[in-house]
């Protein structure tokens, strides 16, 4: 099986303001993007389970213009608050890297 990192040029997480966290998965090739998009591998249920939250708060957007899938969730902790471990939100994408995808 192919891993997500092998078919993408970027998997990234980042604050979208201090109260939201957003993930960008940008694919190298249109065809692979479409396959993963249409197979709905990255869906609210899977994401919610992996990131320990309710599926209702997971927003997934397919962005054809950049062969990208975007996921936005509420931040469990406000950026930089005393119990936040990642002020920029930049290291939250780890569990996505080795996700198995059809290629």
């Amino acid at each position, binding site marked *: 099986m192919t891993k997500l990192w092998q078919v993408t040029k970027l998997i990234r997480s980042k604050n979208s303001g201090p109260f939201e966290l957003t993930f960008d998965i940008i694919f190298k090739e249109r065809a692979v993007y479409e396959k993963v998009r249409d197979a709905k591998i990255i869906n609210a249920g899977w994401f919610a389970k992996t990131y320990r939250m309710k599926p209702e708060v997971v927003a997934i957007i397919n962005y054809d213009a950049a062969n990208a899938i975007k996921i936005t969730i509420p931040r469990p902790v406000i950026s930089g608050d005393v*119990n936040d471990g990642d002020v920029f939100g930049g290291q939250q994408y780890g569990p996505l890297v080795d996700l198995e995808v059809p290629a």
Partner: protein
Amino acid sequence: MKEIRILSATGILGSGFREETMKRAMTLKPDFIGADCGSTDPGPHHLGSGEPQFSDAACKRDLRLMILAARAAKIPVLVGSAMTAGTDAQVDRLAGIAREIAREEKLNFKLATIKSEQDKAYLKKRLKEGRIKPLANAPVFNESVIDRSSHIVGMCGAEPYIEALQNGADMVIAGRSSDTSIFAAMPVMKGFNPATVWHMAKIMECGAASVVLRKYPDCNFAIVTDDHFIIEPPNPDYRCDPASVASHNLYENSTPYELVEPSGVLNTVNARYEAVSDRAVKVSGSTFKHAERYTIKLEGAELAGYQSIVLGSVRDPIILRQFDRWLEDLITAARDRIRAVMGDSIDSRYRLDVRQFGRNAAMGVLEPDMSIGHEVGLLFQITAPDQKLANALAKSLSHIAVHYPVPEWTGLITSVAFPYSPAEIDKGASYRFNMNHVVEPDSPLEMFRIAYEKV
């Protein structure tokens, strides 16, 4: 066809750009030079304390090159979100740097400052009127939140910049601003199609971030018409392609299709990205819908407490095999010791957080994989109402931690490796972002104060 040419110096003033790139960009005859100077990325400290993310020296280096280039070409310089958070004092600080540069370089120009900090009585009035509304995932907002905030800024739109430009400002230094408004102001003032303008502004506000591979911060350049804009990096080593420009809409935005501004919403669903060379991209097709109510986003920060931290690591496989229980018992023992020293009433006056590096330090509660490697780093963090107390509690904690036992070993063990002496590090004040709300003002200028001076 009518056009306007825009130079973005860098993604954030103080992070730098290449002097040669700016020289090359100036030969393309920009109508103004813009730079964003702020962000909430580095957390609440900069708004809470007023301390900037970058040094004065780093900002001065960038600003000097921008001012020199702009004065030689007789075009304005627009800088927004001064010194990270865009508080009034940070605007004054950056304006002071601009005055120093003017003096050193023997330049004269008209400087406008735009202050974005918000009056607490004004906000309370708007709150009572029901004209402060929450955005997504917003915390509780009330009068007490306003009172507790050390600073509250409003994110200004393009209008205060336009006002300053119409009054002949050669340079604008603004407090907190929507990043895009810095780049949209002059094109909007000149009547260009707002859809093209705001889309260009979203791409340009990050400097060279929209190139294919950004190896270091640098300038970017756009030519805007009513129909489209063309973006082409002035650094010959950089190139944009349709995917790199389209991808930039994803960046630090909850959706790539909408960009919410004080005056309306940019919609990029029908945007087209076409290569016009191997380095330049033409963008067209977005739409802009003017908002029914003009809104200004608020940012506030309040003191969360003073912190002392203790860093250490654990390597003993025996401890690591029972790590969760060991750590939980250690924390209980540390709390007991703190209570013995300070009395039972201490419990409500501090909080203790522990991060486990090599385990879930980056993701915390989001981490799905809790497996342990051959060592774990620990960061104990005490938050208390003052620094002296935080330090005293950290001292009690670190002594408990360094000798905390496991049943397999008899005698006194030393269970945590400390990299520092003393083990306790005072971190100072810690702040918290405390609002994610918008105000509905009567006019776009109502919440901002513009002043002019000859420097």
